[in-house]
């Protein structure tokens, strides 16, 4: 493994860690707010109902989180978590570009495209 590759691995490692920590902070904060307001959680998970619209879309989640609602904050943390591997793949595109490794630039771009498609709801 050459130097450039090693540096790429190191940045990638830091990226992953930062994403997870950031996500955990939001989820934890949201959890505290959520539990403080609902001391006895009464939601029935035995029956599947699906989440309301505002907790499903990226814009809806940001709106809920900015309103400092517990569930919105948790969901924002989860969104950051889902975005972490995506950011990692995006970074890989740049790293392979830097190494002029065209085969892998194409490979990572395909993966990135699929992930973005999924996050937008995977309609189709």
């Amino acid at each position, binding site marked *: 493994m050459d130097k450039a590759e090693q540096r790429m*691995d190191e940045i990638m490692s830091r990226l992953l860690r930062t994403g997870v920590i950031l996500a955990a902070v939001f989820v934890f904060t949201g959890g505290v707010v959520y539990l403080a307001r609902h001391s006895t959680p009464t939601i029935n*998970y*035995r029956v*599947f109902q699906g989440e309301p619209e505002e907790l499903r879309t990226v814009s809806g989640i940001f709106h809920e989180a900015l309103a400092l609602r517990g569930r919105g904050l948790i969901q924002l943390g989860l969104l950051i*978590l889902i975005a972490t591997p995506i950011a990692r793949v995006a970074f890989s595109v740049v790293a392979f570009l830097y190494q002029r490794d065209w085969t892998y630039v194409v490979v990572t771009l395909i993966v990135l495209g699929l992930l973005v498609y999924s996050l*937008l709801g995977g309609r189709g």
Partner: protein
Amino acid sequence: MGALVAGFLGALTGLGGGVVIVPLLTVVFHVDIHYAIGAALVSVIATSSGAAAAYVREGYSNVRVGMFLEIATTVGALVGAMLVLHLRVSVISLIFGVVLLYSAYASITEHAHSSADGGPDRIATWLKMDSTYPTENGLESYHVRGVPQGFGLMFVAGVLSGLLGIGSGAVKVLAMDKAMKLPFKVSTTTSNFMIGVTAAAGAGVYLARGYIDPGLAMPVMLGVLAGSLIGARILERAKVKVLRMVFSGVIAVLAVEMIYNAVK
């Protein structure tokens, strides 16, 4: 507490926490399997990313192999996540149980580890997959083989991941360990590295569909994360044999439980 144990075992075996979390939530806490899968997928990303951060830096993971195979797993995950809508809960549980049982069986029967290096392979060489990994005797190089078989298995792994909310680490490790002849530690760590991306593809669809509930995902994710942080530290010291034992035992017990409940 259960989530903490799940994360610990998940990170340790390259399995992802999902296989432990889904049965635990559905069997013990009677949570609807859709919510359980949603929460598991999220925690799987957390485990994978948290553990991968450590492994990538230590040079175990093969980033190129992982990247290439992620095409197969993400497509699979999208297919799997869309399939969930059309399957009944008992069918999902049954598939879950069978998959677990197969994983346990496969890892027990393989006594002799196929570490014999098969020499360079045309496709793998073209994709620059051959690499090195740290051992007790310093860096050791290895060759990658069976790229098409590995790719096919990865698609299956992706479908299962999206469908069942698991990391499909078992199938991924199988694909890399058996079909592609990667060293075991490289297989488990690269698998861990890929799991996050695969799960993210599935989780995106689940989030948009409203399958991810914050109240449920919160304790599961935090517990798993704590567990995985400890798990990643132990792998370096753990022996491959011990890893296998843990790996097989856990999944066999859970498999029987799931199948029993699905058929009941």
